[in-house]
């Protein structure tokens, strides 16, 4: 990651921080889901639902990212 200087536009900066935190959270959730799947402690149905939830989460991130980059001033979450 480049150490980009935070511009005067602080809203964009804040949005990026929030996004970074959410991405860490997603990473943790995904890791946890895979670990439990590997441990065999999930039913096929639970695996399916976890997977669906993670897909939905990632979709929302993609939208959020688009919003943050295209309209950096609108970052009230």
């Amino acid at each position, binding site marked *: 990651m480049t150490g980009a200087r935070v511009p005067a536009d602080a809203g964009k900066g804040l949005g990026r921080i929030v996004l970074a935190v959410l991405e860490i959270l997603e990473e943790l959730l995904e890791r946890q889901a895979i670990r439990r*799947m*590997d441990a065999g402690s999930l039913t096929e149905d639970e695996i399916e*639902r976890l*997977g*669906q939830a*993670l*897909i939905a989460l990632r*979709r929302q991130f993609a939208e959020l990212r688009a919003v943050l980059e295209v309209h950096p001033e609108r970052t009230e979450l």
Partner: protein
Amino acid sequence: MSGERGLCAYAITRGTRWDLVGLPELRAAGPPELIRHDGLALVVTEVDTALFGGLDAEEPAEDGLLAKLVRDHDAIVRAVFEHEPVLPLRFGTVVADEPAARRLLSSSCDEVTRWLDRVAGHREWGVRVDHGAQPVEETPLTGLSGADYLRRRRQSRLDGRQLKDHQAEAAQALHSALAGLATDAVHRTQRPQTLLDAAYLVQEANEDAFRRAAAELGEEARGRGATVHATGPWPPYSFTRLELGVAG
């Protein structure tokens, strides 16, 4: 601003081929001279110590004073190095005057002579291998069931980890081969993401084999996504871990 006069010292050599040394065009330093004593010679230029005074306040830049001084240092060491073994001194070594220079040479004579014998006929090469950027294989979000999505994510994590392991193995293989062809090898600073940052002291007779191995095995590591950065030939800068103490 004017400070003390001193002699900026670059290297110790035997000085037997000084007449052959083509002196480089220097950017900041004056013309180098030799101070001889006991079969050794100190390569110096006369400096005003104030020259170094503002260095720490300056942003390092290609045309800055620091860059000029470092390039001069390298140019002088290299000019000598082309003709005879040379012991580079640490950048920014300034001795008081000629008598001080002679005392340095006489007190470190045995140690320096041994060192010069050891590196004679050798040049230094550097090789650095870093983890390449992970190829991001974006798992598609549509057309997969939740379970398939999760399994794909697991696979791409495994692949990523395996790739890193393969890069580390390639770096290790590269190092073993190069160290085998070198007289000496040292690991330099380790940075995050760095798999290998080593310097090799290579005898001239082994240089072809060394460079071939570096090219071949470097290509192997590159093929696994690592970045490989080779530098050299250098004077034996990285093999100078000695302290020349002069008792008062």
